[in-house]
């Protein structure tokens, strides 16, 4: 199949970029989207041109590295999957595909399609941890966790921190990411001890990084490759309220 790509190119250290056109022919519909980009880069290197820089690592939807916006959709058109799980059979022959980086003030573009997501790391450092003495692993049954709570906490812990929520949000808000971490830890006995301080510290850091506020559109949850529920944000809002007392 043939695809007409419009890829955002931005040189390292420059603030401006633009779209460049590439035509890829003889593609197999069974190729993954990232394999197509690998193929493009091989061609570009063969032509002594600069390859397209893009983030990727595990290519099985668990690391949260890949971060492309395809025709306006972070991680492409499908729900519950990352770019690395997207295949060319999802597109039509001769289709025009716009590939852009995640765009947010807090995620500056480093080069081409790679953005700096260290703002997320700083949010995690601000409070998404539990203070425990390290040493031998404690006996698993010494802290009892209700099954339903454990399941719910795990559904929030599934967040891979890719930033698609920020990318799709009209306000570039990181609420879903922060809420997933806050909810995950607030639900478990180990995280409960520090939950008041945690939610305040994390929300404060989120704002400091320049992310927008939540307008409850739900686009984040729909774009999330792990389908983190919007209820995590409601829980974060509750935890935030309780943090006054």
């Amino acid at each position, binding site marked *: 199949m043939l695809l007409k790509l419009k890829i955002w190119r931005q040189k390292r250290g420059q603030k401006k970029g633009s779209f460049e056109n590439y035509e890829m022919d003889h593609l197999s519909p069974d190729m993954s989207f990232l394999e197509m980009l690998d193929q493009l880069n091989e061609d570009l290197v063969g032509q002594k041109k600069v390859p397209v820089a893009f983030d990727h690592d595990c290519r099985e939807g668990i690391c949260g590295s890949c971060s492309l916006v395809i025709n306006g*959709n972070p991680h492409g058109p499908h729900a519950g999957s990352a770019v690395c799980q997207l295949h060319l059979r999802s597109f039509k022959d001769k289709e025009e595909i716009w590939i852009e980086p995640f765009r947010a003030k807090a995620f500056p573009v480093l080069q081409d399609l790679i953005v700096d997501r260290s703002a997320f790391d700083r949010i995690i450092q601000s409070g998404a941890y539990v203070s425990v003495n390290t040493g031998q692993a404690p006996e698993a049954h010494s802290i009892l966790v209700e099954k339903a709570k454990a399941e719910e906490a795990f559904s929030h812990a599934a967040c891979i921190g890719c930033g698609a929520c920020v990318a799709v949000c009209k306000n570039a808000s990181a609420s879903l990411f922060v809420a997933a971490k806050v909810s995950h830890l607030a639900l478990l006995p180990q995280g409960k001890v520090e939950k008041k301080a945690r939610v*305040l510290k994390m929300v*404060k850091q989120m704002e400091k990084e320049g992310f927008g506020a939540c307008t409850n559109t739900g686009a984040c949850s729909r774009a999330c490759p792990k389908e983190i529920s919007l209820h995590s944000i409601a829980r974060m809002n509750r935890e935030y309220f309780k943090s006054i007392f």
Partner: protein
Amino acid sequence: MRKWFFLSIGQKYLIGLTGLGLALFVLLHMLGNLLIFAGDKAYNLYMHQMVHGKAAFFIQVGLLAAFLLHIILALFLSVKNYFSRSEKYARQASGWKATAWYQKSLIFQGAIILVFVVLHLITFKFGTYYEVVYEGKTIRNLFQLVVEEFQKPVTVLWYLIALLVLCVHLFHGLISSFQSLGLSHPRFDFWIKKLSFGYAVFVTMGYVSLPLYVFFFMTEKGG
């Protein structure tokens, strides 16, 4: 505590709370309006009570405060949100991942409602002062002004448009307030959505009935 309100979640709490307060107000206002169907006396006496009753001053101050707080905070957050994305996307998200138009345009809906409220106050609250005497007591004849105003097709059309905008704003606003206040939960989500939709439609239908009734079934003499 002071810091709490300076972060966006605290501000969203206030937007949600004031929004819920204003939503209650529009319901009560709409129910009061329906007295137009009971004739001029019932309508005028009720409106007189609303303006001159003992609690009227406090209600008006509270309303104004809620309205201003809602607008100022929403404007503040909208500006902040606008600047949180420095470069726009060439293509907008589509299908499942898209954001609905009515969720993207909340601030513009709010602007239309603000213009509407200001014009509405100029037209009615500060409009022509007709008088009427009931049992020896002279009070304002708002009924006559309402009937007069809604004979104008342009006014009726403008009210219909503005009320439709209010309906959309109420629908998302109610769901959003529950979410902002942390009250949404998998168990109640279905009902919150249904209730918000029902509330918005009920309030709008009630409001719309007044100008339409006056325009089609009443003459300026009020008959």
